[in-house]
């Protein structure tokens, strides 16, 4: 079940709680007409039986009212947009009013207005738009102008700022309001796949879905999908078919590795006697897809001989000819081609005519999984539930929680095989460990490549991802760690490191203390227990195996790396101080041994 899309409406009149007309707030009426569920929370929204909303709306006034005077608040607007753009569900689109009335609040609650409010060159809506387009983080937000003002004087200026559409408030009426908002969302909104088949809500994915919807509507055009292996080209094709409104079926063709004659037969069919073994007339995928959609996967693998025949199909005439027949048949199909060869234009394997007809420049680019790592948690959740259900009977697979460390580990893999590869990792984990209640990192068989090539361009990679780190290494890195982020943020994060180091070192001390207690050797001669540093250090270091001298060095390093307060804590504790004493006795020199 996907969330309703959420939109932000910045409007001085609808964003204000006060209204002077009697009856319900005009914002509520606007929402009822538009199919919007008002979730702003400042005024109650009526529940209606027959008006199921299609979108959630948050209203923002964009103004500050102080001492009986109203002024516009650009910083407040930008802050609110940022906030809602970072969290999920993020703004599917933003509607902005043009003119905002400022000035003195009159006794009846209305606002006096200033001469400058009605100057089209400085409309506040325009200022908001300009700020949005200058902000690198916000420039992808689709913006619709919601205004009943005469737009002629500012049409050009708004066009320069990539406005999706002008929407006159008078058009949001009880007859067409809901349909118009639905169309806006379909055409411009960054919205999830409501069917839930395509999982995710990252901006690259939502932009790709929007492009797919728009291209699906352009009847008679061919659509080319470019995407790495495992990115979900088939699913996207189903999505395109669903949004094309075509009544025929979706026919899928997988041609990679097929010989030329088979490719031709699969696509175009044959008549009886066309070749030995052709005992009956047989339609190809093209004819079966009539009035529907034909998907040709691995378009890059089509043999040159078949490309010529494809020309007629991909051209305006949409003709098909069965093998062995001289009769041509017209079909009405939407052709979707897909390939993972991202450089089709540079390739000499394709006829120029063919590339013109598939319009490579207008191809839909499916983002790789690394470009949409925000979606990985949702994909993990989906695959885990899917395979639990699949193996429920055969392996008695249990429902499990997903450990956050496992999620982080998966997010930070490079995933050259994209979603398919992630699915395999999850599928294997459920298959191998069906009866566990928590899916943790240890259940995941990560592809070798992911261990060798950690993900690039990762801001502040979590320490625990590098699971080969010992406590002493971790503490040491905290002194020198550099965050790859904007300067202001970097200072803030770096300033927080000493606190983190204090916590980690205290954690290390307590963990070691516990390990020393549980590994103590109790004998008749020593009923209090004899401290053994090697097994204790091995316990706190996970999979790593330390020799006695290495364990001694690790204890010395942890102690040395700890802040002064924690060192005092060590020395005041009988068990920890004993461990230090043993370590120093065993390794009196300052130097340390190699762990390996």
């Amino acid at each position, binding site marked *: 079940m996907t969330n309703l899309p959420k939109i932000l409406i910045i409007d001085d009149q609808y964003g204000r709680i006060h209204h002077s*007309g009697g009856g*319900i707030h*005009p914002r509520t009426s606007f929402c*009822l007409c538009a199919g919007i569920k008002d979730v702003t929370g400042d005024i109650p929204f009526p529940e209606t039986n*027959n008006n199921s909303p299609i979108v959630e709306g948050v209203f923002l006034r964009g103004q500050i009212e102080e001492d009986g005077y109203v002024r516009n608040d650009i910083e407040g607007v930008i802050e609110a947009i940022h906030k809602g753009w970072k969290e999920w569900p993020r703004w599917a689109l933003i509607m902005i009013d043009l003119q905002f009335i400022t000035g003195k609040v009159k006794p009846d609650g209305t606002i006096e207005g200033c001469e400058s409010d*009605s100057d089209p060159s400085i409309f506040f809506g325009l200022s908001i738009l300009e700020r949005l387009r200058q902000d690198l983080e916000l420039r992808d937000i689709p913006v619709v102008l919601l205004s009943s*003002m005469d737009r002629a004087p500012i049409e050009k200026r708004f066009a320069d700022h990539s406005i999706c559409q002008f929407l006159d*408030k*008078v058009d949001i009426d009880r007859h067409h309001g809901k349909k118009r908002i639905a169309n806006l969302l379909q055409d411009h909104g960054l919205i999830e796949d409501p069917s839930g088949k395509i999982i995710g809500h990252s901006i690259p994915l939502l932009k790709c879905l929007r492009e797919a919807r728009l291209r699906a509507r352009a009847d008679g055009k061919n659509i080319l999908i470019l995407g790495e292996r495992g990115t979900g080209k088939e699913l996207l094709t189903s999505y395109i078919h669903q949004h094309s409104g075509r009544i025929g079926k979706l026919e899928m063709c997988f041609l990679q590795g097929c010989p030329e004659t088979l490719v031709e037969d699969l696509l175009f069919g044959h008549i009886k006697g066309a070749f030995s073994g052709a005992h009956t007339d047989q339609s190809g995928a093209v004819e079966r897809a009539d009035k529907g959609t034909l998907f040709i996967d691995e378009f890059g693998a089509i043999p040159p001989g078949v490309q010529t025949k494809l020309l007629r199909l991909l051209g305006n005439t949409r003709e098909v000819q069965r093998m062995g027949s001289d009769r041509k048949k017209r079909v009405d199909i939407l052709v979707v081609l897909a390939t993972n060869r991202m450089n089709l234009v540079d390739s000499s394997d394709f006829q120029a005519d063919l590339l013109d007809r598939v319009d490579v420049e207008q191809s839909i680019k499916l983002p790789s999984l690394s470009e949409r790592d925000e979606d990985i948690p949702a994909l993990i959740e989906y695959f885990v539930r899917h395979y639990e259900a699949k193996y429920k009977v055969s392996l008695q697979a249990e429902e499990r929680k997903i450990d956050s460390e496992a999620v982080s580990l998966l997010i930070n893999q490079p995933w050259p095989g994209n979603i398919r590869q992630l699915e395999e990792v999850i599928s294997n984990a459920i298959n191998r460990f069906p009866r566990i209640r928590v899916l943790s990192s240890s259940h995941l068989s990560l592809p070798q490549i992911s261990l060798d090539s950690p993900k690039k361009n990762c801001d502040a990679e979590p320490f625990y991802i590098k699971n080969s780190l010992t406590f002493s290494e971790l503490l040491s890195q905290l002194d020198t760690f550099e965050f790859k982020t904007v300067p202001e943020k970097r200072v803030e994060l770096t300033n927080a490191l000493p606190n983190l180091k204090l916590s980690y070192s205290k954690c290390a001390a307590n963990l070691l203390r516990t390990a020393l207690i549980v590994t103590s050797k109790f004998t008749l001669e020593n009923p209090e227990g004899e401290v053994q540093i090697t097994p204790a250090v091995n316990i706190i270091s996970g999979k790593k195996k330390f020799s006695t001298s290495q364990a001694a060095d690790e204890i010395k390093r942890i102690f040395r790396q700890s802040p002064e307060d924690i060192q005092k804590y060590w020395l005041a504790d009988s068990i920890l101080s004993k461990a230090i004493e043993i370590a120093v006795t065993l390794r009196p020199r300052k130097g340390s041994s190699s762990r390996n």
Partner: protein
Amino acid sequence: MCEWQRLRTRINHDWLKNEYLKNLDGLIIQIKSSQSIENKLCRELQAYLKRWSERHGEIEKLLNTAEKGLSPRTLFEKEPLIRCTRKNKDWLAPLIHGLWLSRHDIRKWVKETETILTEANQSHALLQSYYSVTQDELQILKTLEIFSDLVGDLSRQISKFPGKVITV
């Protein structure tokens, strides 16, 4: 923006489009949804009927002043044409106005808009009588829908008037 356009903004943009029409349509949706006119909706309807009685006169005034307010003759009341001699203004201003009228049939626009306004007023009166006399919910809803559509047509028609004083 001339004074007539300011008046139009207040009536058409701020009130009719942004508020009144939305409220009429919102009320219709709520009535249809609840399948009866409950007390709360009754109060709303009453408020909107009253509001029309109070403000429809402003629309009449807007239409009555359209020709005068939009005519390029008004330019003679502002810089730089205000500096024209009285003698020149006396013949030039009516001429400009006449030429403007011959190219832009403002009187026809006003008449067409007045017709819609009259229909809206009639519909309002009918609604008022159904509401206060018969209380027939079906009739009220039907008439309310007609009234709302007429107010919508009226608003669209008012929007078609020129956005600025057009020179000839």
